[in-house]
Structures are given as C-alpha cells and as structure tokens.
C-alpha cells in the first residue's frame, strides 16, 4: 500500500513539475507577445499623432504593464499546480475507469481508512493507472505552442510596423521620451499650397429632402465636411480669422455665389448636395480651405429571405412559404416577388404599405400557380423592395435568388417516393445502431453522455435528407407528422442521456429511465420506418400493377393478331412487347418486397424464355409452335397481371376491413361515453335527491380536484425554468418528470373520487416534491444556473408542496368521516348497478376490438386500447361502488370511465387521420395530402425542413385593411376567442410595438 501511494505521489509530483514548467513558458511567451503587440500599437498611435510626448510616460507605462499583465495570467496557476489533488483529478478525467479510485486513495491517506485491504487494492489499481499515464498526456504542450505562435505573430507585426509606419517602433519610443523629436519630424512635412483664410466655428445645418422623413439637423463646431444625401440643402455658418470685406461661396468649382458677410467676420451661405465635391468661401482673392462634400448614398433597400433552401421542388399548388425582411434608410413603398422564367422577368406585388416604413417583414405565401408558372417549369424567385427616393428616383433591392422547380403530379409523386425511400433507408441504418446498443449504454454519466453524442451523429444523414426533401412544401403530410414524432422522441432521449454527464455512477432511477427511453425510441423509429415502408410498397405495387396490366393487354393483342402477321411483323411486334416488359422489369427491380420481387422475377424469367422460344420458332418457320408459345406468353402475362391485381385487391380489402373495424370501435366508444355520461347524471341526480348529508363530501372532493388541477398546472409551468439544467450534471429533469406524473395521477384519482388511491398518490407526491425542492436548493447553493430562475422555481415548488399538504388534510378528513349513505340512495344505486355493469362488460368487448385494431394499424395508436381498457375498469369500479351503495366513488368511476372513453376516441381519430394520410400518400395524391392536413385546422408553415416542423403563425398585412384602426380592430377581434399560445405571443408583440411607437 505504502509503496503504491509513494508511486502515485511521485507521479503526481512529476505531473505538477511539468505543469509548472508549461505555465512559466506560457507566462514568458505571453508577456513577450503582449509587449510586441502593444509596442506596434504604440508606434501606430505616435504615427497618427494620437499619442504625443505630453503623455509619453503614460503610454510607455501602459506598454510595460501590458507585458506584465499578460505574463501574470498563467502564473496565477503556478501555486495551484503543486496540489496533488488537482493532478489526480486530471488523471481521473483521462482514465474514467478509475471511477474516483485515485482521489479516494489520496483522501484516505489523510483520513482514517475504512478497510485497509480495500484501500491497498484501490491504491495498487490507481498506481498502475497513474504509471500508465505520460506527463505529456496530463499536461500537453498545446497551450504553450499556441502562445508561442502568438508571440511570433506579434513579433512579426512589430517588424511590419517598423517598415510601414512613418514612425517605427524605435522612433515612437524616442518621440515619447524626447519631445523635440516630434518637432524635428514636423519640419519634414510638406507645406500647404498657398495662403488660405482661416475659418472657425463652422456650423452646418442640414435640411433633408422630404422623402427621407428626416428632421433638419445642425452640426456645430464642424470640421466643414458635408455628409448628407443628395438633395439636402446645407446652410453653412462660420467665422473668419481676420475681418473680411467681401465673401462668396464656391461649390463644386462652379461660379461663386453670393455669401452673406456680417460684421466682417461672420459669413453665411447655402448650397444643395448634388454629389461628391468641395465647397469653400472666397474672401476677395483669399479662399478658405476646401471642405469636402461627401454625399450619403441612398442605397437600395436591403432584402433578405430566411430559408436554408436555395432550390425548391414543389407541386403546382404547393405553397412557397418564405419569411422575408426588407429595410431601407428612408422608407419602403412596395415589396414584390420577381419571377424570372427563362430570362423573362415579371413582378407580383406582395405588399404595398399604407405608410413608408423603414423595416417591413412578412411571409411570402404563394404557389407556383399563383405566380403564373406551369407544371414542369423552373424559375428564379427573389423578393424585391422599392424605396421612396424622390431625388434620384426609386430604387429596388432584391433578396438572394431562390430557384424553384414546379413538379407535375407525377413528378411530385416520384420525388416524394424517392425521398420516402431514402428516408426509410436512412432510418433503417439508424435503427440498426440503436438495436445493437447495450441498454443502458453505460453506468457512468460520462458514458451516457458520450453515447448520446454518438447517437446524435447517427441521425446526420437522415437530417440532411429531411432538409433536402421538404424544401418549401407540404408540412401537413403524414411524413411531417412522422418526422415530428421522431424529432421529439429523439430530443427526449438524447437530452436526457447528455444531461447525465459526469464521472459519477448514474442513479438507478435515472438508469431505468434511460433504458425506458431507449426502448421507446427504438419503437418510435420502428414505427416511422414501417409507416414509410407501407406507403412505399403500396405505391410501388400500384405502379407495377399499371405496367403489368398494360403489358398483358399488349400481349393479348399480339396473340390475336399473330395469325395475320408475317414473320418480320411478328418479330417487330414481339420486340415492341419485350421493350414494354423490360420497362416493367426495371420497375420491379425497384421493389423492396421479398416475395413480390421474387414472384415478378420468376415470371420475368418465364417471359424471357418464352420470347426467346417464340423468336426461334418464327425464324425456323415453326409458326404453329410459335402460335402456341405466343398463347402461353399472353396467358402468363395475364396470370401475372391477375395475381398482382389480386394482391392489390387483398391490400385494399385489408385496408377496408381495418377501416370498418375502426368505425365500429368508434361507434361503440361514442355510445359508451354517451351511456356512461347519462348514467352518471342519473347517479348524481339520485345523490342530490336522497343524499343531503353528502354535500360536505362533494364539496371536499371538488376542492381536492381543484387543488390537484392547480398543482398540475403550476408544475407544468415549472418545466421551462428547470430546462437549462437538464444539460448539466444536475439531473433534475427526471425528478421533475416524476413529480409531474404523480401530479397527473393525483388529479385523475381526485376526478375519479378514489379516496384510497388519491391518499396514496398525495403522500407520494409530497415526498417527491420534497426531493425536487431539495434539488433546486442544492443547485442554488452550488450556484448552478440562473439564481433568479432557481429562486422562482424553489418558491413554486414550495407553494405546490403546501397545496399537496392541503389535499392530504382534506383526504384525511374524508377518510375519517365517511358519510353514511341513506337507504333510499343505496337502493337506487343498487338498481342502477346492473346497468353500470353492462357498460363495463360492453367496454371490455370494445377493448378487445380496439386491441385488434391497434394490432393491425401500421402505426402506434397510443391510448386506444389502453384508454378503452381503463374505461372498462373504471366502469367496473363504479358498478362495484354502486352495488356497495357508495355514491362518491361510483360517480368518480363513471367520470373516469367517460374520460377514458374520450381519450380512446381521440387516439382512434388520430390514428384514422394518419391512416388516411398514408393511404393518400400511397396513391401519390399530394394535393389531397395537404388538404387533408388542413381539415384539422393546421395552418401552412414555412418551408425548410426545420421550419416545417415548427408552427409559425402569421398576422394579416396591415394594408389589407383600409385604415390602421380597422387593422387594429381586426386584430383585437381575432384575439377574443380561444387562441393558440402562438397568437397570444403575437398579440403581446403587437402591444409592445404600440408602446414603442
């Protein structure tokens, strides 16, 4: 043991020495670099007269200080480098397998050891690991090299300054330390050309052109240079050094114009800025210095579009959705979209604002059809904005060009099919890796974090495809639904795994969560692949059927005509048929379906052989044999067509059967919900009629339900505040998730009036809230994250803990004072119990059917079977409570059953919508796909892959209204109803804008 510790210490001392050496080198080199850099700057300052000998010692002191400061920074670490624990931490980071053993050995050396033998083993292991680490690995010289590079660069810069600047580094030092040097150099400067009248106190007053909307602007103590847009009238006032008798103003070297001279020394004149040039006063023969006129150009508007896609391929009715922004110095009058179709340009107006804003933005929402493009056309689009320049004429600025390719229905379907296949194949590779991952991927935080990084990289090819595939089109298809599900699930898994980073062992609960998320993600990827695959296969089969039927028809015609054809004509027709068949074979090669491909291939072999035999028979003059073979060929092709058509019909039938089953389940769920609701109302009526003494319990339950709702809501709001910590070692995310789950459960139990479960959940919840509060407090103590946000979180958690405590008290009271049910109410409940039991039995049957439907759906339908089963259970619970004469649990069970039936219906509706979208996608009906999405009230969204997945909202343009007041009213009216959160945000923004104005 002692020997191991000694070895460790010796190694650690070696590491410390190396670190100290590195730090000293860094300090020296940094000081040198800083000194060179500062010296070069000093030379520049002296050359440009910024630095003078008056402040010479200050400058020189600054130069010296720069070197000292730069050198001192690395030296601060010099003492700390001697710390063995610091070196040990470095080694632990390099050898994660040590799992803290090295630190433990060091710590235990100073404190009484627990188990000496264990410590000895640990020490031996740590010593071996430390021995295997080279000092250069612990403290690489990379930083030293970088600083050395900086020093060399600074030295070079200093050298260049010496060559380029009028006063080199040496002269600059001399100038600062010896005042006379400046004078000596000044004597070397060239003299001015001729005498000039001195002017002082120059004041310029600019009167801008009206279109700029700018107020007059005065510049006192000006250096005389004029900076203004053309058309600006400039009024100049100045005082002369000596009294003068006459004054005139010369502008742009034109004939002198009169200038006003007051009391011999105040001179005044004005001119209009037309372009670059100069002005001066002239006093008799003596001119003032020339002053430059520098026109500020009124540049064309700056226009940009926000999209990552520069090439969009979309259908004639596909929406181009491009967010754009236009800015101009003085105002915008029009925004257009310019369409350049084969060199022929035309403009379509996008906006014509009622006022002249300097900044305008919006989302360009047009379709190729609305731009006058036809299917198959390609064009270049750019957004243009016109300014309001009334002097030199209105100018337009344009965004970068977006190329669009307009696909016909077939082209669009082909494109989608191509990308779907690519996406599926890319996802298959992603799945392969996830399937072979160990679960969990590691037991240390660092391992999980490393795995998350690698897992994220698996998606790169897939993400690229998504970007390519959805340039500006169709965000509402099933593909988009699928991609959103994938993205959300992926984020959940990877951010959780990343957040576990650190050298510590992952807590068991987090490990379980990680494994669960891994499994769930695999399921999501599998589901995505199968959905894409189903669409791809259905589309491929449809194409194949079309071709096979055509080929069979051609073969039948050839068979009919065969007797009447001479040899060359027969061979020619056979060639024609073969070409068609080859096209079919090429299509079938694209099939990715084992049995179907095998089937087509085997038939292809038959057809090839038959065609060869027919040719041979014709050439040899065996026309009877050729005829027989031709008959067989026609029959073979017909059989093939029939079989593929059968397959299609089978698929269609399966789809129809599934649809019918879904409709049946839907009908049953609706009836269950309705019947359950009616029975609950009757139960409530009975309780109200016969259960006067129940009111107290009713009120308590209502209060518990309300409080549980508050807890759920407040914890939901807590999430964004704790979100930043998920990415750190603090794993509050999972604790928060658990607390939220408990809260939802508590709320469900309260709604279900399930006293025992509610009590249990309230107790659990109280504990888990305490744990969450502890985590937040720990984060505050360790100063992890934003202290303000953490303090808010801590207060919110505390408040919810109080609410849960209140719930516990209410539940306890109810448990102690179970109300007695009146005999009349008991009788009535028992009479209704049979009816309730029937609902439970019906629900069980429906759950079986829902399970079958879920089994046959190509996608997950979360909540369908589970919801129906839960409904059945709750209905059964209600029936039992009714038989026992307990109205409150009965009502609760009935309410919970209703909720569950509704949830199952929602799940079924969602699955049904996805299925319809998939079916339409299989048929390549892009238009239908998009319109399908719109049925559900989803708006159109911007076009690139990432944007496609977001839910941007757009306000109507103000100019669509006659007055700003109408616009404001329309906005306010729009906000009156229930609106999504995004609209509320827009509303807030609108008011913020008003305040700013």
């Amino acid at each position, binding site marked *: 043991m002692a020997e191991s510790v000694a070895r460790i210490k010796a190694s650690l001392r070696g590491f410390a020495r190396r670190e100290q050496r590195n730090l000293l080198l860094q300090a020296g080199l940094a000081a040198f670099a800083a000194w060179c850099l500062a010296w070069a700057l000093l030379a520049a300052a002296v050359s440009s007269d910024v630095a003078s000998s008056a402040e010479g010692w200050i400058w020189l002191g600054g130069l010296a200080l720069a070197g000292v400061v730069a050198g001192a920074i690395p030296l601060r670490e010099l003492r700390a480098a001697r710390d063995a624990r610091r070196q040990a931490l470095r080694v632990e980071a390099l050898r994660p397998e040590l799992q803290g053993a090295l630190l433990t050995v060091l710590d235990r050396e100073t404190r009484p050891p627990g188990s000496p033998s264990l410590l000895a083993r640990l020490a031996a292991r740590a010593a071996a690991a430390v021995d295997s680490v080279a000092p250069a690995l612990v403290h690489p010289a990379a930083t030293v090299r970088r600083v050395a590079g900086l020093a060399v660069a600074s030295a070079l810069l200093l050298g260049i300054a010496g060559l380029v600047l009028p006063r080199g580094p040496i002269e600059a030092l001399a100038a600062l330390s010896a005042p006379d040097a400046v004078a000596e150099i000044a004597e070397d400067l060239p003299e001015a050309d001729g005498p000039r009248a001195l002017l002082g106190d120059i004041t310029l007053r600019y009167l801008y052109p009206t279109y700029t909307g700018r107020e007059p602007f005065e510049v006192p103590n000006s250096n005389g240079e004029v900076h203004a847009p053309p058309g600006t009238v400039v009024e100049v006032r100045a005082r002369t050094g000596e009294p003068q008798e006459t004054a005139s103003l010369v502008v742009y070297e034109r004939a002198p114009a009169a200038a006003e001279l007051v009391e011999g020394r105040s001179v005044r004149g004005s001119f209009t800025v037309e372009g670059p040039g100069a002005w001066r006063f002239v006093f008799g023969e003596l001119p003032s210095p020339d002053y430059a006129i520098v026109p500020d150009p009124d540049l064309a508007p700056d226009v940009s579009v926000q999209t990552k896609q520069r090439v969009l391929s979309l259908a004639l009715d596909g929406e181009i959705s491009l967010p754009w922004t236009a800015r101009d110095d003085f105002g915008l009058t029009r925004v257009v979209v310019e369409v350049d179709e084969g060199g022929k340009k035309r403009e379509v107006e996008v906006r014509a604002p009622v006022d002249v804003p300097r900044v305008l933005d919006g989302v360009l929402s047009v379709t190729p059809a609305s731009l006058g493009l036809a299917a198959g056309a390609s064009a270049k689009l750019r957004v243009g904005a016109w300014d309001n320049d009334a002097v030199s004429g209105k100018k337009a600025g344009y965004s970068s060009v977006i190329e669009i390719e307009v696909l016909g229905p077939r082209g669009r379907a082909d494109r989608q099919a191509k990308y779907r296949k690519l996406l599926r194949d890319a996802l298959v590779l992603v799945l392969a890796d996830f399937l072979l991952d160990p679960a969990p991927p590691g037991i240390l935080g660092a391992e999980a974090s490393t795995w998350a990084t690698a897992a994220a990289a698996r998606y790169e090819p897939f993400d690229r495809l998504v970007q390519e595939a959805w340039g500006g089109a169709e965000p509402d298809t099933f593909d988009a639904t699928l991609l959103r599900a994938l993205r959300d699930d992926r984020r959940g898994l990877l951010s959780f795994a990343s957040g576990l980073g650190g050298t510590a062992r992952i807590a068991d609960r987090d490990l379980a969560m990680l494994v669960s998320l891994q499994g769930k993600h695999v399921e999501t990827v599998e589901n995505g692949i199968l959905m894409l695959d189903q669409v791809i296969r259905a589309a491929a089969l449809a194409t194949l059927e079309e071709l096979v039927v055509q080929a069979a028809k051609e073969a039948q015609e050839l068979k009919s005509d065969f007797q009447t054809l001479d040899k060359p004509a027969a061979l020619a027709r056979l060639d024609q048929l073969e070409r068609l068949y080859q096209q079919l074979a090429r299509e079938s090669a694209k099939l990715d379906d084992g049995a179907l491909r095998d089937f087509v291939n085997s038939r292809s072999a038959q057809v090839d052989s038959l065609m060869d*035999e027919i040719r041979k028979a014709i050439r040899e003059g065996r026309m009877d044999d050729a005829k027989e073979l031709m008959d*067989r060929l026609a029959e073979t092709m017909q059989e093939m067509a029939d*079989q593929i058509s059968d397959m299609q019909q089978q698929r269609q039938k399966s789809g129809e059967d599934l649809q019918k089953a879904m409709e049946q389940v839907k009908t049953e769920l609706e009836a269950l919900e309705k019947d359950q609701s009616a029975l609950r109302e009757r139960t409530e009526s009975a309780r109200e009629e016969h259960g006067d003494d129940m009111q107290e319990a009713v009120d308590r339950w209502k209060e518990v339900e309300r409080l549980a709702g508050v807890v759920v809501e407040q914890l939901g709001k807590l999430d964004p505040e704790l979100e930043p910590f998920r990415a750190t070692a603090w794993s509050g995310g999972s604790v928060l998730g658990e607390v939220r789950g408990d809260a939802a459960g508590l709320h469900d139990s309260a709604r279900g009036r399930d006293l025992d479960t509610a009590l249990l959940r309230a107790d659990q919840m109280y504990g888990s809230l305490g744990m969450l509060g502890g985590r937040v407090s720990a984060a505050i103590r360790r100063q992890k994250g934003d202290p303000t946000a953490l303090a808010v979180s801590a207060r919110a958690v505390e408040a919810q803990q109080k609410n849960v405590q209140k719930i516990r008290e209410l539940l306890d009271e109810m448990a102690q004072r179970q109300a007695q049910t009146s005999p009349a109410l008991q009788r009535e409940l028992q009479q209704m119990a049979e009816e309730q039991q029937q609902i439970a039995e019906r629900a069980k049957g429906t759950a079986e059917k829902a399970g079958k439907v879920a*089994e046959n759906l190509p996608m997950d339908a979360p909540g369908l079977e589970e919801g129906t089963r839960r409904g059945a259970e709750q209905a059964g619970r209600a029936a039992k409570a009714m038989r026992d004469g307990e109205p409150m649990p009965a009502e609760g069970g009935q309410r919970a059953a209703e909720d569950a039936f509704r949830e199952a219906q929602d799940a079924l509706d969602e699955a049904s919508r996805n299925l319809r979208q998939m079916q339409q996608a299989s048929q390549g009906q892009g238009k239908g796909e998009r319109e399908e999405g719109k049925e559900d009230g989803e708006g159109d969204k911007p076009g690139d892959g990432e944007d496609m997945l977001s839910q941007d909202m757009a306000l109507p343009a103000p100019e669509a209204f006659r007055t700003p007041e109408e616009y404001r009213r329309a906005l306010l009216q729009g906000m009156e109803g229930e609106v999504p959160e995004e609209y509320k945000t827009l509303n807030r923004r609108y008011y913020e804008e008003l305040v700013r104005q």
Partner: protein
Amino acid sequence: MKSWFASSLLLLSGAAWGASVDEGRACLEASDLPCAARIAATAGDSAAALALRAEVAFASGQFADALRLLESAGPGDEQRARDLALYRATLQATDGFVTSKKGDVEIRYLPGTDLVLVDEAFEALQAAHDRIGPLLGGAPPGGIRMEIYPSAERFTKASGLPPEAVQTTGVVALSKWTRLLVTSPRALGRGYAWKDTIAHEYIHYIVAWRTQDRAPVWLQEGIARSHESLWHLDEPPILQPYQQSLLADALANDTLVPLARMHPSMAFLDSADEAALAFAQVSTMMVHLREVAGDAAVSAVLDRVRVGTDALKATADVGTQGNVDTFMAGWRERLKGMHLVSRKLAAMPTVLGTPEDDFGIDPVLANRRDLAGHARLGDLLREADRAEAALVEYNKAIPDGEPAPPTLSARMSDALLTLKRVDDALATLRASVSDYPEYASTRKRLGSILLSQGKPREALVQYRASADINPFDPDVQAALADLYTSLGDPSLAARHARYRGILALGGATPGEHGDDG
C-alpha cells in the same frame, strides 16, 4: 397403367333394365355412374329422364352436354334451377381444360404449368387404388375423373361452395358428383400436400360408394384423413405438431368437437382451428379402430353403415364389441398415451390466390400484423446488410411462448448464414420443419444448406418434400434434376429436368398436347 377399374365393372350386373329415374338417381348418389348411365339411356324422353341424363353427363365430365340436356328438360323446380346454375358455372370454370387419360382415369387441367402435376397425379391415384382401395373393401366401378383447377376462383365456382367457407376451413379439394375436384397447389400462396389430398378425395369417393353415401361426415373424414398418406406410406404418419397441440388443448379443457357438429360438412365449422381439431379427432379414432380391430376393421364398419347401422355404433361393433363408451374411452386413453405436443402452434392459413404480402401465407404473422412489422423491419435491416440487427427484429417477431413462425425461420436462417452461423441456421430450419412441415420454402432452404454441406441424400429429402408441396418452383425442380442425376436415377432426373423446362416456358410445350387438346 393397368386397368384397375376393370374389376369393379363386374359389380355392375345388379343394375336392372327399365328401372325408374329415381333408381338412376340413387345410383348416382351411390357413386355408381355406370348404373346411372344405363338407367338414363333407357328412361325415355320425359323431363325427368332428360334431367337424369343431364346429371349423368355432368358426373361424366360432359358439362356442355349436361347443360344442353337440362335446358331441354325445361323449367323445373328449385333444384333444377340450382343445377342449371351449377352446370353453367362448371362450364365456365373448366373453360380451356384439356384431358389426359390413362386407362380409366381422366385428368382434366388447364394447359400451362399445371402440366407438371399430371404425371404424379396419375401415380398418386394409381397407388391409392392399389394400396388403399383394398383396405376399404374395393373401389367403385366406372373409372374416375379428376379436375385440377388452376385458381381459387375457378375451384370455388365449380365446387358450389360459398367462397367464405373455402377461406374459413381451408377446403381445397372435393369428391362430389362422382368426380374429384382439386385446386392446383399454385393457387395457394405456399402450395399444399396436394397428392395426399388427391388420395384423400379418392377415399371419399370409395367410402361414398361403399356405403351408398350413408357414411356421416365424421366417419368419411376420419377414414380419409387416417388413410390419405397410405398411398405411399405403410403407416399413418404421426399427427402434425399443430394438430397435436389442438388435441392436447381440447383434451385438457374438454373442448373436443362433438361428432354431431361435424355434420353436414367440416367446411361449416366455426374456424380453421376447429376444423383441424375435428379432423385430428376423427383421424385418430380410425387409427385407434385399426389398431384394436386390424386392417379389415374399416371395411367392416363400411359394410355395417351401408346396411343402415349408425356409424358410431358400427365402429364400436367392430372395435369393441358394440360398446361405444368403451371405444371412446379407449380412444381417449390412446390419445393420452401419444404424449401430444402441447406447445402453442398456429394453423397454416389457406390462402387461395395471391397473398396480400410476404406474411399472408404464414400461420402466425398473417394474423399478427404487429409481429409481421418486426419481420419486415428485419428484412429491411438484412437488405441494408445489417444482419445482426435484423436478427434482433426477427426475434421480436416470435410470439410469446410459441416457436418461430415458418416464414420467419426462413428469414432468420438467411441472416444467420450472412453471419456465417451455419449451424444455427440449420438448427433454426430443422426446428421449423418439425413444427411446420408443410412449408415448402423452409424445406427448400434446408435442402440448399445441406447440399452446400455435401449431404445430397439429406438435401434430396428436403427438396423432394418441398416439391411435393409446391412443385412450381423451378429452382427446386432444377435441384431435384441435379440430385437425381448425381445419385444415379436418370429417369427421375429427366422428369424433373422436363418440369424445369415446362416451368421455364410458363407451361408451354411446343409440339406436345393433352389427349383431347
């Protein structure tokens, strides 16, 4: 081929001249076609006589004549209307058929790839006559006609059965109207043991004749099922694992199908599982009968049934001196002694026509689309050259507590072969063949691996079994041709090479034609 019906013709002497139309119809019901034909020829020109002649023509396979005769008989009762519809449907279903004849056996089929069935169909019928006929007390007179229907649609049309009944119970062949109606194995996605089925239907034909059609369905099916493989085997084979599992389950839960429920046809039972259980029950009853009373027992039962004895009573008379309970108890004891496989296995679906996809022919995956999804994912992973990941998905597709479905075993073996795990691939396929013996594709893959391992005789067994289920696979026919050549059987090698050629040309045989085609 020897004229094996010639001996039966001696039995026709009992028929009387000038007998009534009813007697002629009784001959038909007793599957005595020569008797019916003689009576019809002398029955006069009444509508009833014309109808009888039409029935005789129909039973003789002269469908156009049958239709013409029945139409000339004029409108009659509902039965005549039904017969007219049936004759028309049969005429359509057999449109384009050609006939091959050997001795008194006629086989009708549609020219094309079904030609590969004809030789072996003749052989199976001949063997059934020679080996099974004596066990049942002889074969009916007048030869036999068999039709091979190329598609489910044609078979269903000619059978007069509702399509749903065909799909539900897996009926692919019938013995009816003194003819055998058989569906070509190519009409089923996975093929089937079609030669045993021919023998099975032929047994029905014999039993109907021997009992004057008095045998109840359970006895008919019991005899047919227990004897159907005796045309090429000496003893009935052990029940298939699937049937064993059904029997074991039914015995344990006392859910055996009552004999009465098997009337009027197994085709009308509730499900394919129930029909399979019923077949297993009655088949094992007949095996038990032969074991307790000897090879002549079944013939003796038929004699008793012919004279009106209740079938179960007749069975007990022959098997246990008339004590039905003792017979049934003995049968149950025998079943218990069989150590039936009790693990859960699914029924092979009868998929007439092209299945919806790869899994439509699978007993498990056809009904479990969730599991089929995993199998499909495995396929995609395998095609992406990720065999190890594919195996993970394939394993997910195995239902809990059940062996791997057959279509899955074939895929798993492919993935295992990619990973060079040949022994695992072999073990997977052997297990699958044991659980699901009637799956041609598994046997073909197994044969292929055995061949690659230099085991031609074992490979031959598997390829042969594969061809017996699905003779339309040109690869299997080619492999058989090569194997027979290498094992020194040029005759069979030539036959399978010819089949390979027929299949290559989609059934075209320039210069060769059916007997009347």
